[in-house]
């Protein structure tokens, strides 16, 4: 295909990505170094028979005019990044000096909004991803052992948690684990504690959201691995059997190496998706115990006061996080590509 033809074919999608992916990234970078204008204050001196008094009033019109003239606000440099709501450099420095133990420092750090969100996001990403891969693989192997009649219905019901709207899926589970819901009552009965509430405990909330994440994404891993199992090299399996390999050895040395590329694929997709965890926190109303990077941006943007600078700074930091997460993949792809050409 000639460059010219390629250009015209690719133009619409390139425009869409330029305007709605590349431009907003520049936009948040710019917004994050500006702060909203402060109110314009005028000092009026009013003199009466008993001397002069100075009164300070807010000039509403001038404030409005200034905000309309320069909607970005005033330039603030990296100030937003360093304040308490974000990287909190000063607070961390203080805590480092004042904390006697490492544990104390970490607990101070965990109370700062950005680090709190980062802690949960990373825990969620790196706990849920491997577990859902293992569960997906186990289901794929088990379903592969079933008769052909049952496979269709099994795949149908397995797909439900995956296709359901994340917010609705988390709400459905949330209603069930409510202290008055069926799972909540069951857990109270198992624990022998009728006052137990999953919502009230930080660690239980984390576990609940991670279980939701596994429930939601294991079907994806299952379907991919199941498709991989259909292309298993039968003669390799047979020769392994003739050589006396046990069932477990066959899985370990034939099946797993065969589907390893698929594991990498699922891990890549799931790392990207789990890093943006957001809906379950809204669905489980878990913001008191768990927040994520996406959630704090949403929180900044919502409500009466839209804190655009703060949201922009958080977005830039999140994108840097994504870049770090993705860098091993990119470096590898780049090496493979260079080796090929």
């Amino acid at each position, binding site marked *: *295909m000639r*460059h010219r*033809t*390629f250009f015209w*074919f*690719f133009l619409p*999608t*390139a425009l869409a*990505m330029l305007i*709605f*992916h590349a*431009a*907003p*990234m*520049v*936009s*948040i970078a710019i917004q994050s170094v500006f702060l909203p204008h402060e109110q314009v204050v005028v000092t009026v001196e009013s003199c009466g028979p008993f001397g002069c008094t100075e009164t300070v009033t807010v000039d509403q019109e001038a404030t409005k005019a200034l905000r309309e003239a320069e*909607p970005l606000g005033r330039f603030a440099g990296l100030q937003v990044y360093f304040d308490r709501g974000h990287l909190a450099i000063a607070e961390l420095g203080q805590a480092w000096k004042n904390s006697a133990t490492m544990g104390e420092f970490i607990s101070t750090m965990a109370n700062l909004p950005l680090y709190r969100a980062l802690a949960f996001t990373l825990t969620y990403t790196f706990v849920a991803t491997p577990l859902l891969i293992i569960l997906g693989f186990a*289901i794929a192997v*088990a379903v*592969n*052992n*079933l008769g052909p009649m049952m496979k*269709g219905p*099994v*795949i149908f019901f397995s*797909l*439900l948690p995956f*296709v*359901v*709207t994340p*917010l*609705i899926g988390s*709400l*459905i589970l949330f*209603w069930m684990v409510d202290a*008055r819901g069926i799972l909540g009552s069951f857990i109270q009965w198992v624990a022998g504690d009728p006052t137990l509430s999953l919502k009230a405990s930080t660690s239980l909330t984390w576990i609940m959201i991670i279980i939701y994440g596994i429930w939601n994404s294991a079907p*994806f891993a299952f*379907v*991919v691995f199941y498709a991989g199992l259909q292309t298993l090299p*039968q003669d390799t*399996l047979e020769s392994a*059997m003739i050589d006396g390999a046990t*069932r477990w050895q066959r899985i370990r040395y034939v099946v797993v190496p065969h589907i390893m*590329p698929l594991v990498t694929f699922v891990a890549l997709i799931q790392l*990207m998706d789990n*890093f943006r965890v957001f*809906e379950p926190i*809204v669905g489980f109303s878990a913001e008191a115990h768990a927040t994520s990077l*996406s959630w704090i*941006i*949403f929180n900044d943007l919502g409500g009466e006061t839209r804190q655009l600078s703060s949201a*922009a700074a*958080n*977005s830039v930091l999140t*994108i840097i996080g994504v870049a770090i*997460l*993705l860098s091993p993949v*990119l470096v590898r792809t780049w090496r493979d*590509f260079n080796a090929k050409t």
Partner: protein
Amino acid sequence: MASSTVENRSFALRYGSMAFVVIWLIIAAFPFFWTLWGSFKVELDFFSIADWTDALTGPRTEAVHGSPFTSAGYEGAWLQEEFWRAVINTSLVCLFVVCVSLTIGTLGGYALSRSGFRYTFWLLIIALIFRAVPPITLVAGYLLPFFEFNLWGHLSTAAIVLVALNQPFTLWMLHSFFQKIPKDLDESAKVDGCTQFQAFRHVIIPVMWPGVITTGLFSFLLAYNDFAVTAMLLAKENQTMVPKIASFLGTTQTEGNVMFAVAASVSAVIPLFILVMFFQRQIVSGLTAGAVKG
């Protein structure tokens, strides 16, 4: 099945894996059926302090409505809270997103699969990076310009944003489908005098329908399931289903409103249920399409 004749499995293993599958199916599907059943009860039955079996038998529902089943939640959500409006909005957004993102996505994906130059690789990598960026970070970038140009709050704005957010994924998926179609096909069409576009339109698209339908399904799911973009970019009167359900939760203090959310959630899940029923094969092939390349 070939492998079962090759491997002489023991009965224990067979039953073990069957039991595992059954447990998984209960975990996967039970919450949906439980919520469907419970959506026809009153709140005090669905969330019962006294006894969990109330949600099954519905004694309080019977006391209030004279029958163990009531459609009060559905009436409240659909009529009183005008959920039907959100359903129409979601349908419009989804229709637009599927049509437009398939149109521009097939053009772009086709070009990527047929051009042998180095830049196609880089374009795919850039698309992958865009795919990895959480949508809410981009929303933070949209708000200020949208306020400035008075674009905020409209259904059309949200639909166009969703089309664009969909593009990286659509490109990857269609690219991998196009790669499977032999290049000789359009080469011979061009030898016969077709332009590149005619070859695309009359030769490639007819054999591409399965791939296009699969990609369309995933575009639909993305638009249908989105919460971050629609919650932030739509004005209250233009809300689609998912932000509407989230807004029920904000007003659940009065009794019965939580049942509106339950009923609305069930209403929103049913189309997905039907979708999986009819397009299971396509969804499975779509999930594995990206994986083929490894």
